[in-house]
């Protein structure tokens, strides 16, 4: 197959070289003639929207090299921000985007029943993955909404005699911002610090719990450094103090073992697009026995146990259900592979680079999230040099700002190390070749940037940078 692609490319570029600017029609007919050989059934015009520049140029990969700087799609190593939609998931969704378009809440006709049956099957699959019952799953638009409903909903419902909420400093923004909102509503919030390995101190949590505490919200797997919090211990502590325990498991579900009954979790947030499902769908697990009551944020038709009104998007829900089914089925296979690739990445980088610090406790972290700080190198400059690798220096939500990550600050990373971090996200579709390529490129960039850095020279000469007084005053 790649051979066909090459010939298309060469053909059009050779025409261009020969004749300079080629008439659009001639160019297109050449391309389509070559394309139709392999793609008889579906010959869609290729991506006019993808590449800015002239329409004719955007029609081929070869021509697009000229019109835009991007030649090829970079390899993807950012599984924490989002993941590819698994073809199996997409395949399960398609019937519900074409033929089976019914509203799952229509009780009077076949279209509704068909969609409802599919939604309920998906609910079963989601529940099975976390050891819950189907009735306890509520579909939402994503983990952000699930977190909002959990934190605000539970706190507000029990607000008459309980006005205190506990969370951690390394939570995702949506939990932290929900807590800020609660503070504005006269709730008290305790933001627990974490230890330097990224894990909370159980004694501090126990001391923070008060008689008027209604909720403890601690994320399962951190989105930036991948550390896994001791869910079972927290769950047991909360249950013994009769406090509800919410966990944001967007990065954890399908990747680490989660059992809501064993871990005594009362509320749990799930995201679709972190587990190879579609974007725009998530789920909330809300325990029925002992029952967690929530004040809904969105008012409406009372769907989803009155917790989340609004028509359930059947195609997306089917996608989430299928993604959860596959996640359960492939847990061992994917887990072993991701561990292997993660070790390969860390070992190779450590073998070729010095002064590399792994953020977060590697023994208590999900291996698919590797956060490394390259000392004396600025993270953003490195990303600029790694244009053909899709990486991030932290969470996608804050990647637009140049502020160092608050998660790294919370684990006590020095300012300079927080600025020099890169997060490698390994997923189901990552290959050995991609890891090797990424390592080579990273090492190359680190060496290049360190050679330019005066700080690196001083370190090589054995000067302790901390001993230097940079300013006169």
């Amino acid at each position, binding site marked *: 197959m790649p051979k066909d692609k090459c010939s298309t490319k060469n053909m059009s570029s050779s025409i261009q070289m020969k004749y300079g600017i080629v008439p659009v029609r001639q160019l297109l007919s050449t391309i389509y003639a070559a394309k139709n050989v392999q793609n008889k059934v579906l010959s869609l015009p290729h*991506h006019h929207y993808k590449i800015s520049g002239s329409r004719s140029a955007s029609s081929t990969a070869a021509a697009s090299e000229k019109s835009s700087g991007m030649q090829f799609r970079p390899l993807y190593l950012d599984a924490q921000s989002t993941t590819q939609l698994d073809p199996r998931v997409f395949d399960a969704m398609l019937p519900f985007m074409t033929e089976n378009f019914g509203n799952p809440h229509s009780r009077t006709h076949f279209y509704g029943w068909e969609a409802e049956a599919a939604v309920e099957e998906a609910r079963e699959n989601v529940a099975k993955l976390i050891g819950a019952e189907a009735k306890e799953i509520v579909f939402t638009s994503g983990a952000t909404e699930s977190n909002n409903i959990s934190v605000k909903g539970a706190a507000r419902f029990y607000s008459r005699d309980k006005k205190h909420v506990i969370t951690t400093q390394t939570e995702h923004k949506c939990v932290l911002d929900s807590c800020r909102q609660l503070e504005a509503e006269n709730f008290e919030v305790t933001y627990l610090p974490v230890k330097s390995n990224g894990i909370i101190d159980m004694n501090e949590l126990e001391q923070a719990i008060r008689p008027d505490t209604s909720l403890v919200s601690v994320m399962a797997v951190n989105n930036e450094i991948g550390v896994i919090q001791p869910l079972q211990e927290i769950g047991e502590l909360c249950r013994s103090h009769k406090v509800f325990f919410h966990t944001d498991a967007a990065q954890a579900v399908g990747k680490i073992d989660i059992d809501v009954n064993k871990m005594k979790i009362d509320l749990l947030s799930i995201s679709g697009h972190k587990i190879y499902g579609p974007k725009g769908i998530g789920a909330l697990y809300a325990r029925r026995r002992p029952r967690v009551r929530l004040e809904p944020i969105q008012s409406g038709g009372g769907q989803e146990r009155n917790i989340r009104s609004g028509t359930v998007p059947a195609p997306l829900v089917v996608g989430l259900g299928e993604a959860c089914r596959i996640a359960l089925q492939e847990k061992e296979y994917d887990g072993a592979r991701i561990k292997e690739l993660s070790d390969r990445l860390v070992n190779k980088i450590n073998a070729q680079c010095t002064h590399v610090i792994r953020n977060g406790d590697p023994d208590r972290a999900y291996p698919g999230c590797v956060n490394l700080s390259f000392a004396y190198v600025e993270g953003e400059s490195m990303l600029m040099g790694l244009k*053909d690798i899709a990486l991030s220096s932290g969470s996608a939500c804050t990647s637009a700002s140049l502020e160092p990550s608050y998660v790294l600050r919370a684990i006590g990373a020095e300012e300079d190390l927080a600025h020099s971090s890169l997060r490698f996200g390994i997923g189901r579709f990552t290959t050995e070749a991609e890891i090797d390529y990424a390592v080579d490129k990273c090492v190359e960039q680190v060496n290049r940037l360190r050679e330019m850095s005066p700080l690196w020279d001083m370190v090589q000469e054995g000067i302790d940078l901390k001993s230097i007084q940079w300013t006169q005053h």
Partner: protein
Amino acid sequence: MVSRIYVLSLYHKLLREGSKFHNYNFREYTLRRTRDAFKVNKSETDPTKMKSLVEEAEKNLAMLQRQVMLGNAFSHESVMNREFSKTKTPPT
């Protein structure tokens, strides 16, 4: 009882279909996953288990045929495709 020839033909059909993905990651995953799944279940003797595995493979083959067509309609060349064409390593 499922015949050996039929299982082998399914295996080859799955690999052939998977290798048609333009998307590097999907192509590699399909090939790797197919090989590993057949390797693990190579010595399965339980007829009901065999039947369900064959049914799963048939379902996956139909899924692949649809998804290869859909995926390739929107595909671009990736960095890894380029790497492989440079080093002349076959993309397997």
